[in-house]
């Protein structure tokens, strides 16, 4: 995030703490697409993803007083609320039974983001990067980040040694970081 983003974040936190309607609108307009994106990536069912998005926004609004800037950025905090809500839903008994049919489908590796997302010119370069990421790296992020698997579950799922999960996770994110910084500078 750039410096001006940080300042915006501080203002946004204050607006949210004041329960200012405009703060909530800014929050929604700036972040709903990212939040919905990660939730949908985890849940893969639109109607349920919408419910989880609502739940996540309400949680962010009602728990904003518990957010501690010393522990990380607001965006990181909000994103983890969305991700955890979605993962909790996916792991719930109710979801597991109702989504049994979609389950096998859901286990397939990450869809191509450009197919599922709406058009946003800012994201074009980033999408290319993600699209072009080697499948072995995509898989590892898919398992850990979108499935919420632990390291050992991931190792089991992908049939690779435990140590490889770590190194591959590192390489995957290093590659993403390098490519993203190239986009920014270039």
């Amino acid at each position, binding site marked *: *995030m750039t410096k001006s983003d940080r300042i915006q974040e501080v203002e946004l936190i204050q607006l949210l703490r004041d*329960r200012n309607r405009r703060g909530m609108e800014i929050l929604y307009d700036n972040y709903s697409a990212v939040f919905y994106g*990660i939730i949908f990536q985890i849940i893969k069912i639109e109607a349920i993803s919408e419910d989880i998005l609502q739940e996540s926004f309400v949680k962010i*609004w009602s728990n904003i007083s518990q957010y501690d800037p010393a522990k*990380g950025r607001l965006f990181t905090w909000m994103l983890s609320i969305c991700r955890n809500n979605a993962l909790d839903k996916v792991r719930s008994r109710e979801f597991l039974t109702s989504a049994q049919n979609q389950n096998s489908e859901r286990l397939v590796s990450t869809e191509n983001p450009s197919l599922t997302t709406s058009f946003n010119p800012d994201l074009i370069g980033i999408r290319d990067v993600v699209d072009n990421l080697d499948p072995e790296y995509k898989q590892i992020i898919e398992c*850990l980040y979108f499935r919420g698997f*632990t390291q050992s579950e991931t190792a089991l799922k992908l049939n690779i040694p435990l140590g490889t999960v770590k190194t591959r996770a590192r390489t995957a994110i290093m590659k993403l970081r390098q490519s993203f910084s190239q986009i920014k500078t270039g």
Partner: protein
Amino acid sequence: MDLKEYISSGVVELYAMGGLQPSEKREFEQRLLLYPELAEELEKVREGLEVFTGAYSKNPRPALREMILGKSNTAGGKGDDPGKLLQVERSHTLTYKYLIAASLAALVISTFASWFFYSRWDEAEDRYVTLFNEKNQLAQNYNLVKNSFDKTYADMMLMRDENVIITQLNSTDTTHHYQARVYWNRNTGETYIDILDLPEPDQGLQYQLWAVTDGTMTDAGVFTPVPEMGMQRVKNVQQPSAWAVTLEPTGGSQVPTMEHLMLHS
């Protein structure tokens, strides 16, 4: 610990994606506080992940915007939009309301219970004191009866003893019916007097028992006439042939005052 090696192991990425085991996670969080470089690296990894997440951005249905922003009023506690999430929120406040109501009820019940048990305790304390006093009274009464019984029993055993010789003493003045009995044990010489009827002596005077042995009158001790006392032990006497009671100055005399002879055998 080599921090560079630790970072390059991929542990930061795993932490950021939530893939660490609980023990590894704790260790990582402890190190995070110690090493600012680790915190910096985590921040970079998170940024990378967030940009990556951004690639999956997907606009929700436009209708959702108003629906969700409508909930913001609820989250702020001033809305009235009856929706699914409103119910979620309401059930939260409801839970709190129930909790508050339940704790208030518990307070009332416990206050009442405290008062109730305190009064019960107070009552029990009173009853305990009463019972305790009654018990003491009974014990005292028992002791009195026991002492009285012991005395009576001893007296009766004395009367039943075949070695005890009982002598009846009658008044010298035949116009009165004064009388007493002397119990003398011929083996031990123990002597008891049982006053049946004798008047209270005047101030400064006392009754004295005399034993007649070999024609002389021997002092057998002074006594006070208390009929309900039963038998009174006096001095031991050897071989008495007769008994006499005289009135003497308090403490008794060496020689009997014969003009005050009250009883004789």
